[in-house]
């Protein structure tokens, strides 16, 4: 199911401001790749170019190529809506639909895909997705209650269940734990470890221990100064990035010495 992402020569802009400059990298299928770097270095922007969410921002524009196996996401005639069905996303703040029940939240994406799904089939998808997000046991008796009534950590797992219900090839996570307490964070990290069996996962995080714990590969982004575009400094196996990175700037950032 999972697909390889191959980015080459990618630039992203906000209006006339260049946010990321000439990024090329490969993300392996069925693995977790973490993006780390200081605020403003463009890692979230880059993540959003991978499912064409960047262009939703007014003035947002992208140049370059993102290959998902052998399909260019920015090729002519590619529908961004169908890209987003293949590349799912989880956001920083848990954002279940407040007017929908837990069940409807998980089913939302499936119902979008147009064709009428039979009730029994939908029940199966909802159960499977909630189990996949380690949430089933906590919510199985109150599927018809509003999703907004759950705790922050449960809401985030509900969002993950919603994202995996449509069976995407890739799952993008934009600082998924930064609004959560340590216990909920641990639950999400465990979940990420399980999800990588089925999906290609890319996670942006400010927490370097988290990157070290959950990821197989780590990419370090940096920017030369305020107002300068962000750049990819290096991407390597996580173990190597955290023990013996090949660029000095990476080591400075990881050990807390920057500038």
């Amino acid at each position, binding site marked *: 199911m999972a697909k390889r992402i191959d980015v080459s020569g990618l630039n992203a802009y906000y209006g006339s401001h260049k946010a990321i400059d000439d990024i090329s990298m490969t993300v392996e299928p069925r693995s977790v790749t973490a993006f780390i770097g200081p605020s403003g270095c463009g890692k979230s922007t880059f993540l959003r170019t991978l499912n064409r969410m960047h262009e939703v921002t007014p003035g947002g524009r992208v140049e370059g190529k993102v290959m998902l196996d052998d399909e260019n996401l920015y090729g002519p005639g590619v529908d961004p*809506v169908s890209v987003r069905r293949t590349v799912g996303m989880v956001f920083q703040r848990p954002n279940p639909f*407040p*007017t929908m029940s837990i069940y409807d939240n998980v089913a939302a994406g499936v119902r979008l*895909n147009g064709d009428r799904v039979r009730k029994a089939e939908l029940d199966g998808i909802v159960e499977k997705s909630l189990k996949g997000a380690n949430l089933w046991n906590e919510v199985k008796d109150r599927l018809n209650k*509003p999703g907004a009534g759950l705790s922050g950590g449960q809401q985030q797992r509900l969002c993950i269940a919603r994202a995996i219900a449509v069976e995407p090839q890739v799952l993008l996570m934009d600082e998924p734990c930064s609004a959560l307490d340590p216990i909920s964070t641990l639950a999400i990290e465990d979940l990420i470890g399980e999800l990588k069996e089925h999906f290609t996962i890319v996670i942006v995080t400010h927490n370097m221990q988290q990157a070290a714990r959950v990821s197989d590969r780590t990419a370090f982004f940096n920017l030369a100064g305020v107002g300068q575009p962000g750049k990819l400094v290096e991407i390597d196996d996580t173990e190597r990035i955290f023990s013996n990175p090949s660029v000095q700037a990476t080591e400075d950032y990881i050990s807390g010495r920057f500038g």
Partner: protein
Amino acid sequence: MDITPATAASPPPLAGGPAPAEQKATTRPGDRIFLALSRGSGILLLVIMAAIAVFLTVRATNALSHNEGNFFTTFEWSANSTPPVFGIAVLAFGTVVSSLIAMLIAVPVAIGIALFISHYAPRRLSTPLSYVIDLLAAVPSIVYGLWGALFLVPHLGGLYGWLNDYFGWTGIFEYHDGAARSLFTIGILLAIMILPIVTSVSREVFLQAPKMHEEAALALGATRWEVIRMSVLPFGRSGVISASMLGLGRALGETMAVATVLSPSFEIGTSLLDPGGGTFAQNIASSFKESGEIGKDALIASGLVLFVLTLLVNGAARLIIARRKEYTA
């Protein structure tokens, strides 16, 4: 200024003993003045409301005690004859029907315009457009009335003929040539009049729909319309209901425009397109000047009914909003 806390003056409670009976919080002059002012305004509002209600009820009772007809079922308004005979059946029917037609036309269009301004139109188009809409709300109702009488009435014959051809069999769209001074015309005119307020309020609500829920829908592969359906409309639901109620309030009570366009009569026809009918506000405006003591009191009685009708509509709207409160927290 005395900065010693008031509690310092009282002796500290003994361990295990009862807490001091009165432990007054410090109040500052500013707080006391503001408290008096706001409490006073609140009480004043209640007093005014009560005074209006008492006035309306007393005068209405006076008229009703002289009424020789049935106030609710009589198709006649001869409050100045002796004995006075009057009933609100025609007025209630006309008010409710014309306002309903107005809502059926205005609310969907208003939601469409509001969504276009908030989510579809490019900014250089949406700003002037919303400005024009707000401007429309400021046009005095007599101007709408004149436009209705001089433009709308002579130009609706074609539409009425078409409705008659295709829907005449239902009875309610039967049209016999004549001036289009009917309840349906009033409905169209009222729809145009309430459109700006419903649009304005809905637009504000739609603009406040949280970005993060729109992004959640987008990331699931929703099209623009699906984003609106999943995150914007549910969020704006109660706001749109409130906006519609504002519009309905204006439609129910609209006076001058209706009085200018309608040719009043005290009968209820089966067709909405036939001239005639009346509304509470229009009837009050049209007959007030020529009314004697009992006649005026009779009009006040009809005004009281309009007042109660508006209250009921608002209550119903609140019920609808409260029913799904759990989901809008």
